[in-house]
C-alpha cells in the first residue's frame, strides 16, 4: 500500500508483481534479491524479517521458491518477496543473513526441510533434523510417514536395537482425495497397510 511498484521496478528490473490475496507481493530474481532487501530495509523501513518459507512446486520449473515476509514497524505494513531458486536438482538462492541476522535460522530451516542452498550463509547446517539425516522432509516426494533409516546415535542404536521406521498410517490421512466421481471420492484409506505387521504396498 505504501510501496510503489513503479519506483521499485525502475531500480530493480527483474521485479514483477505477484498475485496475492493480502499484501504487496513481488517476484524477484535471485541476483537482485540481496540488493532489494537492503533497499527495503534502509530506504523503506522494513526493519523486521518475520518469515522465510520454502515452497516446493513439485512438477513445475523452477521447482523451488523461497518466500520472504517483511514487516515495517513504522509503516505497519507487510511485503512478500518470492524468489525462485536457481536449479531444480540442487536449488540455490543468495543468503540474506547479511541484511537481517534473523534470516540465519530461517534459512537453516529451509535448507533442512527443502535442501535449498543459501549462497553466502555463514553456517548452513541442519537445524531441526539430526545432522546425518539423508532426506529433506518437506519436499513433495517425501512421504509423510517417513523413510526407514538408522537412529541418530550409533552407541544407543546398538543397545536398543531400534531404528527410524515409517510411521504406521493405519489408513490415514483420512480425507477424500480429489477425483472425478463421487464414488472414488469416498473418504477412504489412502494407504491400506493397516497394521504394522503388514508390509507397505509400494
Amino acid at each position, binding site marked *: 500500500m505504501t510501496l510503489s511498484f513503479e519506483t521499485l521496478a525502475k531500480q530493480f528490473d527483474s521485479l514483477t508483481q505477484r498475485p496475492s490475496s493480502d499484501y504487496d507481493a513481488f517476484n524477484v530474481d535471485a541476483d537482485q534479491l540481496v540488493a532489494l532487501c537492503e533497499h527495503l530495509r534502509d530506504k523503506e523501513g522494513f526493519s523486521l524479517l518475520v518469515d522465510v518459507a520454502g515452497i516446493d512446486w513439485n512438477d513445475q520449473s523452477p521447482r523451488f521458491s523461497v518466500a520472504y515476509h517483511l514487516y515495517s514497524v513504522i509503516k505497519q505494513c507487510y511485503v512478500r518477496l518470492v524468489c525462485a531458486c536457481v536449479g531444480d536438482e540442487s536449488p540455490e538462492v543468495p543468503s540474506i543473513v547479511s541484511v537481517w541476522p534473523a534470516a540465519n535460522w530461517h534459512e537453516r530451516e529451509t535448507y533442512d526441510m527443502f535442501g535449498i542452498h543459501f549462497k553466502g550463509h555463514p553456517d548452513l547446517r541442519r537445524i*531441526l*533434523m*539430526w545432522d546425518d539425516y539423508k*532426506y529433506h*522432509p518437506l519436499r513433495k516426494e*517425501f*512421504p*509423510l*510417514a*517417513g*523413510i526407514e533409516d538408522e*537412529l*541418530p*546415535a550409533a552407541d*544407543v542404536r546398538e*543397545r*536398543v536395537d*531400534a531404528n*527410524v*521406521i*515409517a*510411521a*504406521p*498410517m*493405519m489408513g*490415514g490421512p483420512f480425507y477424500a482425495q480429489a477425483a472425478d466421481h463421487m464414488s472414488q471420492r469416498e473418504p477412504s484409506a489412502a494407504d491400506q497397510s493397516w497394521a504394522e505387521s503388514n508390509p507397505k504396498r509400494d
Partner: protein
Amino acid sequence: MSTENLEVGYNSRIEGDVIVSKADAVINWVRKNSVWPMPMGLACCAIELMATGAARFDMSRFGMEVMRFSPRQADCMIVAGTVTYKAAEVVRRVYEQMASPKWVVAMGACASTGGMYRSYAVMQGVDRIVPVDVYISGCPPRPEALLDGMMRLQEKISQERSLTQLTKKR
C-alpha cells in the same frame, strides 16, 4: 501415631517387639512410598505434569513430590511428551543413568504410541527404546489420570520380587 503400615515393617519405638514379614513386603513398601520421579518433560504433557505437581493436585500426597532432574537421584522416569527420533537418544541416555530399581511411565498418547503425530520425525512409542511399566492414555492425560497411573505403578512395585532381584544382581 503408628499407622497400620508401620507395624508391618519395623517400629523402632517398640524395642524388642519383632514382627515377622516377608522381606519383599518391607522392601517394596519402602520403595513404593518414596518414588522420586524424573520428569522427562518433552512437550505439552509436561505442562499437565507440572499441574500435577502444583497446588491443586499435589503429587506429594503419594510420596512423589521430589522431582529430580538428575537421573542419578530418580527412581521413575515419567516420559511426558512426544519422543522424536532426535530426542530418543537423550531419553535412552537419561534412562541408562538412572540407578536401579527404576521404572518408566509413558505419559500421554505420544509417549505411548506416537499419538496424533504419525510423521517422519516422531518415534512411534517410547517403548521401542526403554521398557515401559505404565502407559497412561490421554492427550494430555488429566492430572487425575497421571495420579492414577502413578498409583498403578505403586501397586506394581508392591508386587515385585525385590529380594530375588537384589540377590541375583550380586
